[in-house]
């Protein structure tokens, strides 16, 4: 039975504190119920958006809510609860999306995966390349271009989603932002190449 109480309007951190202070009592139970009810559909919606299918999204949402519930006794409020929750959900979504090809792609076999393991030299070279690319991105792109590039290349967001997220104006939306970012990066790489050959 859910009770209509003053807890309904309390901020997340108050609900968590109430739960932590009274985990075995009715008040604590009430608090955690209100908290999970408040966020559960948002958790599902995010998962649905990333994995794009209902059933897997529901699985992810249930896993995440259970994980959150189990972690709440040890949760330390050092910022926004929603940021903490979002990270759990998004990481779970990413691992699901990235795991999919390994599960379903018949072209990926164990031998191929083993041959893709990098040696120490290759790993060092990759890390060095990554550092240089990070420095380049920081140097030549403005924050919105960086964010757009990240959302597109790492998070796999659609151009339409990025346009909305970043409130990009103009007919081409985030497409123009991404084209500009890539053009700047190419130009920077070319400049460095020319500098290196002279």
């Amino acid at each position, binding site marked *: *039975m*859910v*009770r*209509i109480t003053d807890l309904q309007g309390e901020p997340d951190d108050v609900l968590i504190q109430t739960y932590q202070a009274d*985990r*075995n009592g009715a008040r604590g*139970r009430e608090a955690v*119920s209100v908290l999970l*009810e408040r966020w*559960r*559909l*948002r*958790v599902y*919606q*995010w998962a*649905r*958006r990333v994995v*794009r299918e*209902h*059933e897997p*999204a*529901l*699985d992810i*949402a*249930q896993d995440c*809510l*259970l994980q959150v*519930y*189990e972690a709440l*006794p*040890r949760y330390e409020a*050092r*910022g*926004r609860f*929603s*940021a*903490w*929750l*979002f*990270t759990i959900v*998004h*990481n779970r979504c990413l691992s699901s999306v990235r795991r999919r090809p390994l599960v379903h792609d018949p072209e990926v076999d164990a031998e191929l995966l083993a041959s893709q393991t990098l040696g120490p030299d290759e790993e060092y070279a990759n890390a060095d390349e*990554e550092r240089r*690319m*990070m420095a380049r*991105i920081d140097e030549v*792109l403005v*924050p*919105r*271009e*960086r*964010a*757009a*590039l*990240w*959302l597109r290349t*790492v*998070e796999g967001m659609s151009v339409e989603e990025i346009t909305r*997220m*970043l409130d990009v104006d103009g007919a081409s939306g985030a497409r123009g932002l991404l084209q500009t970012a890539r053009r700047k990066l190419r130009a920077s790489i070319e400049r460095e190449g020319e500098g290196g050959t002279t």
Partner: protein
Amino acid sequence: MSERPFSPEEFVRLLSLPEDHPERRHAEASGRLDAWRQMLREFEDPPASNATAAELTSADAALDRGMAAVLAARPGARGDSRAPGSGGPGLLARLAATLFQPALRPAFALAAIIVVASTSWWMVTDRSTHAVRGVGNESRILVATRTVADGALELSWTPVAGADGYRVRFFGQSLREIARLDDVPRPTLKLERSSLPTGLPAGEEVLVEVAAVRRGDVIAASSPRAVRLP
């Protein structure tokens, strides 16, 4: 670009750092922090969902059942006696979670269909006694809708014995509550386009949830249901 995702604690801590903090500045350099901040904004305040209203309704009901089962299992499976960080949830909590695994969902779906169908049949064939009999201690209210002659939408739901009245809440596509009626005396509500409660957008699809209330306590509630307003 490093694709390493943030850990929950790391992301929360970075957000709380001053903008000129070197660690935050470093995280800003790749665009990752800004990208995550934007995603967080949409997580907190979702745009019109790419999920259908039926999917949202189904998800909400499933999550509600799942979490209720976990919470109900808690007294017997409490982690209080375990050392902090000693790991997984209690046996009953795991069992409860297992009950909602995909493999078992068809069975739940079938059971739900049978319950809905039989209750609907009962409501249609036995309405006269239904209001008197109510649904006793059952915690679920079933909501039915029909469009009446003047284009109005009539909501009706299973009456609950002992209820002082009913609370009807409406949620928009962003899942924020957009309107509520706290003291609906009877298990029926007629919504007319010309006199919709404040906050309800005519012609739009919204989620509606009905709760039976007794002395301030919710004693039974429906799952959210998608309806198109007149």
